[in-house]
C-alpha cells in the first residue's frame, strides 16, 4: 500500500499526538540541545569583550577594515558593507567576523537534530513503536520541526543577549544578530526535513544537510569575494545581507529565509505521506556485491565502521579551530575589559593574552578531540549491545582484535581530530606569523598524552565494566569541569590534579614541561594494558 493512497480525506488526523511526541522528543534531546545552544551562545559571549576592547577606537577599526576588505578576507567573513561601517560600529565588525562561523555551527546543530528526530529514529524502529500508537503519520515530522523552531528561538534570544552589551544604542543590531541565527536554524531544519524524506537512510540525510551547508559556505564565500549575486544563493548569505549594525540595516532578507523555511517545511509535509516508512523517495542505490580488498580483519572493519565519526570530529574541530583562530590575532590588549569570570577562565598564567587565548582554545580542542575518541569506544559497546559484533566474535579473532580494535580506532580518531583542530586554529590564528603557527601546533601536539589517557581510561572501563556507561565518561567530564571552572572556582589543587590536562603545560602561555607528558604517556600505556587484560577476561554480552 502506498502511503499516498491512505492519505485521501484525512487532514488533521495525520498530526494526532504531535503534542505528546513533542514533549517526549524534547526530553530525549535535551542534552544535545543544551550542549549546542550553550556552546554556540557561550562561545560568542566569551569572545565579545575580546573584540570590543581590541577595537575600542574608530582608528583601530578603520585600520583593521583596510586589511579586511580584500576578496580573500571577504570570502572568510562577509560583505564589504560591514567593513564600510567599521568606523562607526564595533557591532558591524563583530557581526562581520563572527556570523559566518556561528551561523555554520547553528546549521550543523539543526541538521543533526532533525535527522536524529526523523530518519534515525525510523532506522532503530523506535518510531515504529510510536506510530503504532494513536499518533498521526505526520506527527513525528511536526514534532521535530516544532522542537527545532523552539530551539532556534531560544538560541536566537541567547545570541542577542550575548552581544547586547557590545555597542550602546544598537539594540536593533543585537536583535537582528539573534534573529539571524533563529532564521538559519529554521531554514536548515526545514531543508534537512526535506532531505530526510528524499534520502534512503539517516546517514545520507545528514550528508545532504551538511552538503547544503557546504553549498551555503561556498556561495557566500564566492559572492562576497567577487561582490556578485552568488551570495543570494546562500542561506547563510541571507543573514549577512541584513547588514546588521550598519546604516543600511534591513530586516527583509530574514523574511526571505523564513519564507524558504516555510516552503521547505510544507514540501517535507507533502513528501512524508508519499514515502513508505523507513524508505526514502530515492531508492537505495545498489552497493558493492563483494568486499574491497582491504576489508579483511576485525581491525579493518572497526576502522571502517568508525571513520564517519572520525571525519565528523575532524571537520568539526577544523571548523571550530578556524573560527576561534580568526579572533586570536586581535586578542592582545584587552584584559581590562573582561569580566572576572571570563578572565579567570582564560588565565593561563603570565604571557600575552593572545598566548593565553591560544592555550585555552588548545585545551578545549583537546577535550573535544578526546570526546570523539570516547564516542568511538562507545561504538564498540553498541556493537555488543545490538549484537552485530557476535558474528565477528564467533570468527577466529582474538579478543585483542575484537573488541580490542576499538582502542586503536579511538586513539586514531582522537589524535587526528586534535591535530586538525590545532591546524585550523594555527591557520587562521597565526596571521602569517610562522612562529605562532608552530607554537600553536606544538601546543596542540603536547595535549596528546592527556587525550590518550582519557581514551585509554574509557577503553579500560568498557573492558572491565561495560554496563557502566557513565564510568567511560567520568574522567572526561571531570577534565572538562577543571578546564572551565578550575581557576574560576578556586578548586583545590588535588582535585584539579585528577584531570590529565592539568598536568600539560599551557603552551604557548607557559613554558614547555616534558616530564609530566612522559608520566601521562606511561599512565595511558598502563590503562591500555589494563583494558586489553579486561577484554580478555570478561563475558561478551550480546543481545
Amino acid at each position, binding site marked *: 500500500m502506498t502511503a499516498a493512497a491512505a492519505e485521501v480525506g484525512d487532514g488533521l488526523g495525520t498530526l494526532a499526538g504531535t503534542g505528546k511526541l513533542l514533549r517526549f522528543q524534547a526530553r530525549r534531546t535535551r542534552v544535545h540541545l543544551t550542549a549546542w545552544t550553550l556552546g554556540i551562545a557561550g562561545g560568542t559571549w566569551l569572545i565579545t569583550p575580546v573584540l570590543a576592547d581590541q577595537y575600542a577606537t574608530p582608528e583601530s577599526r578603520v585600520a583593521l577594515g583596510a586589511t579586511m576588505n580584500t576578496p580573500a578576507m571577504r570570502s572568510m567573513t562577509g560583505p564589504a558593507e560591514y567593513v564600510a561601517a567599521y568606523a562607526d560600529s564595533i557591532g558591524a565588525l563583530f557581526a562581520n567576523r563572527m556570523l559566518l562561523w556561528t551561523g555554520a555551527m547553528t546549521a550543523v546543530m539543526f541538521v543533526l537534530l532533525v535527522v536524529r528526530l526523523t530518519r534515525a529514529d525510523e532506522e532503530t524502529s523506535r518510531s515504529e513503536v510510536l506510530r503504532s500508537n494513536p499518533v498521526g503519520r505526520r506527527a513525528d515530522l511536526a514534532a521535530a520541526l516544532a522542537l527545532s523552531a523552539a530551539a532556534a528561538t531560544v538560541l536566537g534570544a541567547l545570541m542577542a543577549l550575548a552581544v547586547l552589551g557590545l555597542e550602546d544604542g544598537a539594540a536593533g543590531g543585537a536583535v537582528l544578530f539573534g534573529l539571524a541565527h533563529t532564521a538559519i536554524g529554521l531554514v536548515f531544519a526545514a531543508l534537512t526535513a526535506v532531505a530526510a524524506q528524499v534520502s534512503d537512510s539517516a546517514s545520507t540525510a545528514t550528508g545532504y544537510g551538511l552538503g547544503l551547508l557546504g553549498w551555503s559556505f561556498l556561495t557566500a564565500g564566492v559572492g562576497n569575494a567577487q561582490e556578485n549575486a552568488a551570495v543570494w544563493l546562500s542561506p547563510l548569505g541571507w543573514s549577512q545581507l541584513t547588514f546588521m549594525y550598519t546604516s543600511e540595516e534591513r530586516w527583509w532578507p530574514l523574511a526571505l529565509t523564513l519564507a524558504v523555511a516555510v516552503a521547505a517545511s510544507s514540501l517535507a509535509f507533502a513528501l512524508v505521506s508519499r514515502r513508505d516508512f523507513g524508505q526514502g523517495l530515492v531508492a537505495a542505490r545498489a*552497493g*558493492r*556485491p563483494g*568486499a574491497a580488498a582491504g*576489508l579483511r580483519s576485525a581491525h579493518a572493519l572497526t576502522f571502517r565502521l568508525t571513520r564517519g565519526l572520525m571525519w565528523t570530529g575532524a571537520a568539526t574541530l577544523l571548523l571550530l579551530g578556524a573560527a576561534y583562530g580568526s579572533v586570536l590575532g586581535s586578542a592582545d590588549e584587552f584584559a581590562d575589559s573582561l569580566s572576572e569570570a571570563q578572565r579567570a577562565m582564560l588565565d593561563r598564567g603570565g604571557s600575552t593574552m593572545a598566548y593565553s587565548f591560544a592555550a585555552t582554545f588548545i585545551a578545549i580542542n583537546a577535550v573535544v578531540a578526546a570526546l570523539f575518541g570516547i564516542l568511538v569506544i562507545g561504538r564498540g559497546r553498541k556493537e555488543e549491545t545490538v549484537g552485530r559484533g557476535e558474528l565477528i*566474535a564467533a570468527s577466529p579473532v582474538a*579478543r585483542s582484535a575484537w573488541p580490542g580494535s576499538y582502542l586503536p580506532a579511538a586513539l586514531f580518531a582522537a589524535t587526528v581530530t586534535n591535530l586538525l583542530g590545532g591546524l585550523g586554529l594555527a591557520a587562521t590564528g597565526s596571521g602569517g606569523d610562522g612562529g605562532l603557527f608552530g607554537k600553536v601546533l606544538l601546543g596542540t601536539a603536547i595535549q596528546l598524552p592527556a587525550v590518550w589517557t582519557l581514551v585509554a581510561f574509557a577503553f579500560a572501563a568498557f573492558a572491565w565494566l561495560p554496563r557502566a556507561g557513565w564510568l567511560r565518561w567520568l574522567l572526561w567530564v571531570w577534565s572538562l569541569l577543571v578546564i572551565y571552572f578550575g581557576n574560576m572556582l578556586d578548586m583545590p589543587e588535588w582535585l584539579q590534579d585528577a584531570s590529565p590536562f592539568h598536568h600539560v603545560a599551557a603552551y604557548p602561555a607557559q613554558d614547555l614541561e616534558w616530564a609530566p607528558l612522559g608520566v601521562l604517556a606511561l599512565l595511558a600505556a598502563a590503562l591500555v594494558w589494563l583494558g586489553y587484560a579486561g577484554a580478555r577476561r570478561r563475558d561478551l554480552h550480546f543481545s
Partner: protein
Amino acid sequence: MNAVIRTEELVKRFGHVTALDHLNLEVAQGETHGFLGPNGAGKSTTIRVLLGMLRSDGGRAELFGADPWKDAAELHRRLAYVPGDVALWPGLTGGETIDLLGRLRGGVDRARRDELLERFDLDPRKKGRSYSKGNRQKVALVAAFAADVDLLLLDEPTSGLDPLMGAVFNECVKEAAAQGRTVLLSSHIMSEVEALCERVSIIRKGVVVETGSLAEMRHFSRSRLRATLKHPVHGLADTDGVHDLVVDGLEIDCSVDAAALDDVLARLAAAGVAALTCEPPSLEQIFMRFYGDELAAHGVREGNGR
C-alpha cells in the same frame, strides 16, 4: 575421543539467575544433533559458552577436546556460527559482510559463495539496513555454509525464513552432514529437527532432561492407537500401560506404552479388528511430555500428551 562437543555439569549464572544448571551435552563427530527447548531454556547460553563468549561458572565444556574459553580464536577456525537474531552493519552490503566473514576465516570459496547466494535467492548488493529479518538470516547462513569447517553451530537459524527457504536450509544441512560435518541445530521447530537430526537433546531450565536418538525416544514413549472393533472389548481400562482411554461404542482411542503394545493388541485381536491405526509419538509429543507442567501453569491443557 570422538565427541566434538562435550559439557559436563556446566553451570552459568547471570547474577541471581542460573541459566545453565549442571548441563550435560554430548555431540559426536559427524552427527546432526537437535537442541530443543523453548525460549529462555538456555540454548543460546550453552552455545555462547561453547563459543568462548561467556565464561562458565562451573563444570567443564570442551570443543574438539579443547577449552572453548582459552582457545576460542583457534577453535573458531574449525566452526561457523549462525545466531538466532542476525544483526548486520547498516552500511555494509550482504556481499561485503559474507566476504569479510570468509576472509576472517582465511579465505572465500567464490564458486561456493555464489552458488549459495543463488540457492538462497539473496541479493548481495543491498545494504545491511535494508534487509528484512529473513534476508539478514540468509546472509549469516550463506557465510556459514560457504565456510570450510568441521562444525556448524546453528542457533534457531530458520526464524524469519519462509517455507521455501526453510527447504533450501534443510538441503544445505543434509549436504553438510553428508560431507561429515558435525551440526548442532538449536530449534523449537519440531518438523525441522525431525527431518534433519539423528539425535536430540531436550533442554529445560538449564538442564538437559532427555537426550538420545529419535528412535530410542519413540521407543520409550507412548503410541497413539485408534481402532474400530467388531465386538466390544473389556478390561482395557485396567491394563497397565493404557492411558487416556476413550471408548465410544466400538470405537476406541488411547495412548499405549511401548511395553504394553503386545498385550493391548492381543486383546483387540480377540475382539476382532475392523480398522486400526497406530502412530508413533511425534517429537512434539515427546517434547511436550517434558513441558506438560509448564503448559498447565500457563493454562493450556495437555493437548498433545495423550
